[in-house]
């Protein structure tokens, strides 16, 4: 028998196992939060993207960083879907589940398709592990998994064997187990080991024995699939025909960070980012601190209030001032947002939403801060609200938010969510020279004989952005009501009425400066599905499926939530019924009903999880069938 090389090449095997072609596959790694499941998922994501698939991912973190080992509270998961055509969601159900312990199995099994692949670390199915998961009997042995293709593998023992002789302790050896699981999964889907081997070199280069152990575990897992009789077939998912160009993977938070840096550079501003750590927004800060050579100034403030007020101070000085947080932190920023509205300074406020209220579900996704974004401030305090729909979209949305903020001298609220923030998808790398470019301008001298008028407005109702250092333009701004044009403190009744109206009209007027709402599908018909934010993928996929089946249904996904696109009201009238799926109790629906008197129907869920496509499909079917 030929001895196989460490990185077996196709065709070298004596008895290559059959390869089954798939259009798409959904795989989920799950295990203890210390099991390295996020890394396993990220590596499968990268190698699949490099193989040319379209991908969508859904990392699912436990709330506790280190819940007791083996407990259900400590289960961490990472789901990835890769496909040979364009996809918008990481999949409703899982085709292959890799579960590292009983707790991971019991919490994730409901999502596995019947007949799906179930790879288990059988070493973890001991008395203690089973008890922690609440199993009375070992599911591997009691026949309860009969509807799946079960592969119980002694991953702990086999990993220890693979790394034997490198001088590693038991704990260190067991830490390589995720590479074993990766290797096996890579074999199953015909994935190259190369990107992960490069990763190991980069990450563990300084610790040769650990690097070698991880390499061995990876190969051991791969070879297990290849050589043992346990696995009978493997799968292949061909390249997707995406638009031509150079691609990379990007997560939502990374796209936000890169969007901020590039929007600042393209508009000729310095970037100042004030923030206070909070899940799931912290990674924006982690990305930006790496970019000091771009002149990025990051400030880890003492709290969210200082984070936004520092951004306001930086904006007064002429910078692109930005801050990001999640619900609880956004609540703390509310008063300062009012200051930014009153002083009419451009500031970007990013809310990476999570489950609420209060501390809520820190690591889970939700869309329940729309009302907070719209109205969560004292007084008549309008500001533009726009929302990203996917990880890569975050990049474009930041550019658009900054365009609006600087052109209209207003704070802008940008909504993302935990699902978008941590999820990854291929991003077609833009040519930097083709990114939006428009120079921010600051007045440099007096244009009249009356002294500087900080609240004199242009045709957009925007005021001049005069910055300190400019001789002759000294002025004071603040939270007290302003006299029209002069900006002096003014308590006059009619002036207040006028200024409230002006601030409202300024924001409403942005509707003239944003694209009209587009629809996917027929421009009139029986049903229009309206969505916003991170539910884009599920809604787009569901509507497409229904359209293929001949349903009279169209999809409008809103990027602009305040103001709404100018044609939205008219568009809503062209369909018999309107469905608004949201991960909240109907916040956009309430806005749309109030604004357009449309009797929209909701599909609402707050379980910390994104919509499954089938949930939206079911609702559409129900609505189409019911009239």
């Amino acid at each position, binding site marked *: 028998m030929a001895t196989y090389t460490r990185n077996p090449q196709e065709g070298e095997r004596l008895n290559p196992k059959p390869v089954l072609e798939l259009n798409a596959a959904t795989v989920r790694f799950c295990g203890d939060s210390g099991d390295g499941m996020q890394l396993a998922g990220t590596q499968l994501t990268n190698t699949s*993207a490099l193989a*040319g698939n379209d991908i969508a991912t859904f990392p699912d973190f436990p709330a506790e960083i280190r819940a007791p080992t083996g407990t259900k509270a400590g289960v961490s998961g990472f789901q990835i879907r890769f496909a040979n055509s364009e996809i918008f969601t990481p999949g409703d159900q899982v085709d292959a589940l890799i579960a590292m312990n009983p707790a991971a199995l019991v919490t994730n099994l409901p999502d596995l398709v019947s007949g799906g692949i179930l790879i288990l670390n059988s070493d973890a199915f001991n008395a203690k592990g089973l008890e922690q998961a609440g199993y009375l009997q070992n599911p591997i042995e009691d026949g309860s998994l009969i509807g799946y293709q079960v592969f119980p593998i002694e991953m702990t023992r086999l990993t220890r064997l693979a790394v034997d002789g490198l001088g590693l302790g038991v704990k260190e050896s067991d830490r390589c187990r995720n590479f074993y699981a990766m290797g096996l999964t890579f074999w199953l889907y015909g994935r190259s080991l190369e990107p992960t081997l490069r990763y190991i070199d980069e990450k563990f280069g300084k610790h040769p024995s650990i690097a070698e152990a991880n390499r061995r575990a990876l190969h051991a897992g791969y070879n297990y699939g290849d050589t043992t009789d346990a696995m009978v077939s493997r799968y292949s998912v061909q390249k997707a*025909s*995406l638009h*031509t*160009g*150079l*691609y*990379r993977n990007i997560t939502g938070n990374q796209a936000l960070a*890169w969007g901020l*840096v590039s929007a600042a*550079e393209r508009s000729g501003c*310095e970037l*100042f980012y*004030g923030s206070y750590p909070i899940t799931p927004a912290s990674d924006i800060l982690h990305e930006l601190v790496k*970019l*000091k*050579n*771009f*002149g*990025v*100034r990051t*400030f880890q*403030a*003492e709290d969210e*209030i*200082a984070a*936004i*007020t*520092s951004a*306001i*101070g*930086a*904006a*007064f*000085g*002429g*910078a692109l001032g930005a801050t990001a947080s999640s619900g609880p932190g956004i609540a703390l920023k509310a*008063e*300062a947002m*009012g*200051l930014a509205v009153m002083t009419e300074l451009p500031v970007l406020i990013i809310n990476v939403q999570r489950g609420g209220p209060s501390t809520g579900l820190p690591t889970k996704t939700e869309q329940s801060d729309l009302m907070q974004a719209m109205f969560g401030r004292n007084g008549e305090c309008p500001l533009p609200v726009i929302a990203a729909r996917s990880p890569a979209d975050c990049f474009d949305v930041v550019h658009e938010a900054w365009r609006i903020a600087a052109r209209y001298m207003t704070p802008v609220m940008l909504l993302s969510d935990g699902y978008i923030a941590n999820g990854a998808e291929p991003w077609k*790398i*833009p*040519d*930097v020279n083709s990114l939006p470019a428009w120079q921010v301008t600051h007045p440099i001298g007096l244009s009249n004989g009356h002294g500087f008028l900080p609240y004199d407005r242009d045709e957009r109702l925007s005021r001049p952005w005069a910055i*300190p*250092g*400019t*001789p002759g*333009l*000294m*002025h*004071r*701004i*603040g*939270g*007290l009501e302003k006299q029209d044009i002069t900006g*002096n*403190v003014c308590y006059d009744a009619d002036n207040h009425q006028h200024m409230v109206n002006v601030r409202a009209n300024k924001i409403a007027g942005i509707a003239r400066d944003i694209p009209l709402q587009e629809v996917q599908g027929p421009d009139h018909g029986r049903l229009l599905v309206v969505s916003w934010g991170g539910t884009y993928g599920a809604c787009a996929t569901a509507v497409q499926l229904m359209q293929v089946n001949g349903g009279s249904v169209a999809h409008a996904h809103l990027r602009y939530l305040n103001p709404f696109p100018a044609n939205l009201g008219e568009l809503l009238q062209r369909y018999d019924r309107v469905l608004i799926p949201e991960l909240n109790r109907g916040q956009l629906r309430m806005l749309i009903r109030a604004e357009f008197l449309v009797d929209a129907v909701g599909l609402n869920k707050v379980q910390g999880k994104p919509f499954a496509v089938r949930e939206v499909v079911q609702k559409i079917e129900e609505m189409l069938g019911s009239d």
Partner: protein
Amino acid sequence: MTIEPTLSVLTAKDFSSDQEIRWCPGCGDYSILAQMKKVLPTLGVPPEKTVFISGIGCSSRFPYYVNTYGIHSIHGRAPGVATGLKASRPDLSVWVITGDGDALSIGGNHLMHAIRRNIDLNIILFNNRIYGLTKGQYSPTSILGQVTKSTPMGAIDNPLHPLSVAIGCEATFVARSIDVNIKHLTMVLKRAAEHKGTSFVEVYQNCNVFNDGAFDYATGRDTKAETTLELEHGKPLIFGKNRDKGIRLNGMHPEIVSLNDGISEDDLLFHDEQADEPTLAYLLCRMRNPDFPEPIGVFRAVDAPRYDESLNNQITEARRVRGKGDLQKLFNAGETWMVE
């Protein structure tokens, strides 16, 4: 900083705004404003490079009355606004104007962190031991037993002492002055402006409407020589109408001694504002009326790294090591693939 030739002709008038001043007649804030306008033209910084940022309170109206750039922000948050501005615009001279409630109650957190970062701001706290703007509730510096609108039977919480707080936050410049002590206040404001890093100045300010006479002991013609003590670097601590009393250390404790009893100046405690350890400054700020004369002047002035400077140095350093950032390189780095 190079001084532009036109600056030599700047006067207090160049720093006066056209806004009508709305403080109560007789309020101590007027004097602080007047001294500030005297000091500003002497600093070599033109009005357009000067920014005043305040919170909310009577004192926080201050920025409207100086013809510089300014933000009258929200209650307690001026240090945050000022930090963002100074960090991104190191070329500006940034002042923070705050009250005892603004700085130590709602804004206590921000004050603490601005000071420990030693960001180059001049923070002037107008201490009137009362909430002026909201019409007379007690503040964190109101004294035990103080009867106010919200403490009819007397305040029962221990007051904060602004300088103790500042020193506890490792302040590099700590000073105190008094609204009506015009010359002294001018000197202290100028010293604060010249210090690099956070300068923290407490100014005793009379609110003649809601807490009139709170500092009479320190300002009274007959009492002030006995109740205050002017600190001078390198000089012994001497006070009294006839400058015949001093402060001597007895172990760890200060004591008042008479210079006539065979005790010479050399036996006294000498002030050292540049001492590395803040121990002396802390001891001095715990000398309080009526047991001791209250020191005024500069308690502490030491040099330490500044947040704004370090932040900008890191940018310079990152550029030196990695080169100026290139967006296209950033986007294209790492694992990428081509779709044909």
